[in-house]
């Protein structure tokens, strides 16, 4: 219940923010809803945005199960997208569906290796994972720009430096003829798999023990270092896959459009979903919807394009602050019931 409450409170706070700026809050709320879930078109738009957010959310949620706050999903996404666009230039890739699977696998591996570094640095060098992952994502973005603008620049891409576009046979289309690409289905499947892995398998359980109490995990002889590095790698792989899908299904080549903050919004998705893999799905659809509705606010009310960032920031801050209420409400109710007040 608490996540829902904090989203509602975030929307209310955003309404007040808009009202102070001279916009009508009811109109803002209405447009947000209409832009996100008003008709079939906006649903498609929202789901298309939700697909990468589920995957970048997993990049925060899986390491969080092992007790890490990893916020560099943007870096793994960028690395994965670049690997996906570049690998047909260097590796023999099949044509057609098999080839698509291959380039996506490469993007997963690229993101996983990138993020595994964060786990290794934390376990073997004691470097704080929050800081190192964010630094690595700035490094990744600059490397990405270097490769796209200098090393692998397609001479035909004049206005917007890009890598050579992917072969048409490798591109990934929409599901059953809709605009929503297959990344959404993969996101759903990976959420289910992560949920099953974390709650049913021995390794998943061990990972959660590490997250709950690393000292106890060490004492009972769990391979703490390996579990942490694997959790980071799996998370990074998901973000890399998000980048791969953005390239192979949306942009067709690696260029600056890939850097649109999907990794950062993933942080938010995971925190609001309390790092629960199944919770990521509805939260990503909801927040993806708000992101999609941002352009409506811009078009109809003339609000700045950063409005959505303000809304999402408010939702996150309120979610984190509402942590203080957890357990407290239940305790108050129990106390009242015990004293017969209710």
């Amino acid at each position, binding site marked *: 219940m608490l996540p829902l409450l904090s989203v509602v409170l975030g929307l209310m706070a955003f309404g007040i923010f808009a009202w102070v700026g001279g916009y009508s809050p009811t109109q803002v709320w209405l447009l947000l809803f209409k832009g996100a879930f008003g008709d079939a078109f906006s649903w498609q738009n929202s789901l298309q945005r939700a697909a990468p957010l589920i995957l970048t959310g997993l990049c925060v949620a899986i390491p969080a199960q092992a007790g890490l*706050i990893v*916020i560099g999903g943007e870096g793994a996404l960028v690395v994965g997208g670049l690997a996906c666009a570049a690998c047909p230039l260097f590796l023999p890739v099949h044509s057609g569906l098999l080839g698509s699977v291959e380039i996506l696998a490469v993007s997963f591996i690229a993101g996983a290796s990138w993020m595994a570094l964060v786990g290794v*640095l934390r*376990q*073997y*060098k*004691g*470097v*704080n994972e*929050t*800081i*190192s992952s*964010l*630094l*690595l994502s*700035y*490094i990744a973005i*600059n*490397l990405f*720009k*270097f490769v796209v*603008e*200098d090393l692998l620049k397609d001479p035909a891409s004049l206005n917007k430096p890009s890598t050579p576009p992917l072969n048409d046979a490798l591109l990934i289309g929409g599901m059953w003829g809709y605009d929503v690409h297959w990344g959404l289905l993969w996101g759903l499947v990976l959420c289910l798999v992560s949920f099953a892995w974390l709650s049913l398998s021995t390794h998943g359980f061990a990972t959660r023990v590490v997250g709950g109490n690393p000292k106890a995990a060490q004492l009972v002889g769990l391979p703490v270092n390996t579990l942490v590095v694997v959790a980071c790698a799996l998370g990074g792989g998901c973000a890399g896959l998000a980048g791969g899908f953005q390239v192979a299904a949306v942009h067709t080549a690696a260029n600056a459009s890939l850097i649109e903050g999907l990794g*950062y919004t993933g*942080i*938010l998705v995971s*925190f609001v979903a309390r790092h629960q893999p199944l919770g990521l799905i509805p939260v990503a659809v909801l927040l993806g919807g708000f992101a999609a509705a941002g352009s409506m606010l811009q078009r109809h009310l003339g609000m*700045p*394009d*950063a*409005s*959505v*960032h*303000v*809304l*999402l*920031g*408010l939702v*996150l*801050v309120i*979610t*984190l*602050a509402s*942590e*203080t209420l*957890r357990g407290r409400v239940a305790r108050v109710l129990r106390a009242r019931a015990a004293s017969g007040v209710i």
Partner: protein
Amino acid sequence: MDFVLNISLAMIGGAIRVGTPFLFVSLGECLTEKSGRINLGLEGVLVFSAMAAFAGSHWSGSAWLGVLAACLAGGLWGLLHGLLCAMHRVNDIAMGIGLMLLGVGVAFYLGKPLIQPQAMQLQGLALGSWSESAQVRSALNVNPLFPLGVLLAFAMAWGLGHTRLGLELRMVGDSAEAARTLGAPVQGLRILATTLGGVIAGVGGASLSLYYPGSWNEGLSSGQGLIAVALVIFARWSPIHCLYAALIFGGAGAIGPALQSVGISKGYNLFNAIPYALTLVILILTCAPNRTIKGSPSELSVSR
């Protein structure tokens, strides 16, 4: 000989120019962390206060009023962080991420109308006016906020060691239990340290938008606030070391623009990655698993 001199002068000038925001943000973070609380959201503070400084200077016509606006904005954000983290069960690292994203969002929202206009800039101090050489003059044309930052670093080092408030702050950072036993207001002191840290970091934001690069746009600070947080670890929580660290990083950050001004544009993005890579390397060299770093406040959640 002249060439070497010119390059080294350009590096010193660049180190001061680029290092000034690092200096202020790392001093602010140092003060906050001394009280046992970490504020990862200083990136948000930096962007938000840079916007406030530009707006203040644009509307009032005085750059120093802009700096004041930046301090107020930074202090407001610091206070918010301090108050929210004082609540039971609220994680300061996560809240830092939240306020970073919110701060950047609000700054872009409110700063939208400010991308085009001009604002009064801070005038550089012409410390090189004694020299005939144009290079020396331009290298020694120093950001007026830089000497303030140097003074502040020494004042903080002295204050933390010799004043009652400084000692209490460090006690709160090293053992909240002991501080409570002695009757020090633990949460109050932490809120104070976070707010003051925000005020100090705000000056760094003003330096960005009112001196160098001297304009307001959405790519003004990409991760400089975060680098400064890492710098504090490197500086082992000593304000004086923060000064050296900021200058080293300013130098590293000046390499890219310096090469571009000479006409080397290929691989420009690669040079832009240097400060981040350097930060990471330094973290790897200074940190070690299973032991806290010397000088670290023991209440700090990153060092536990």
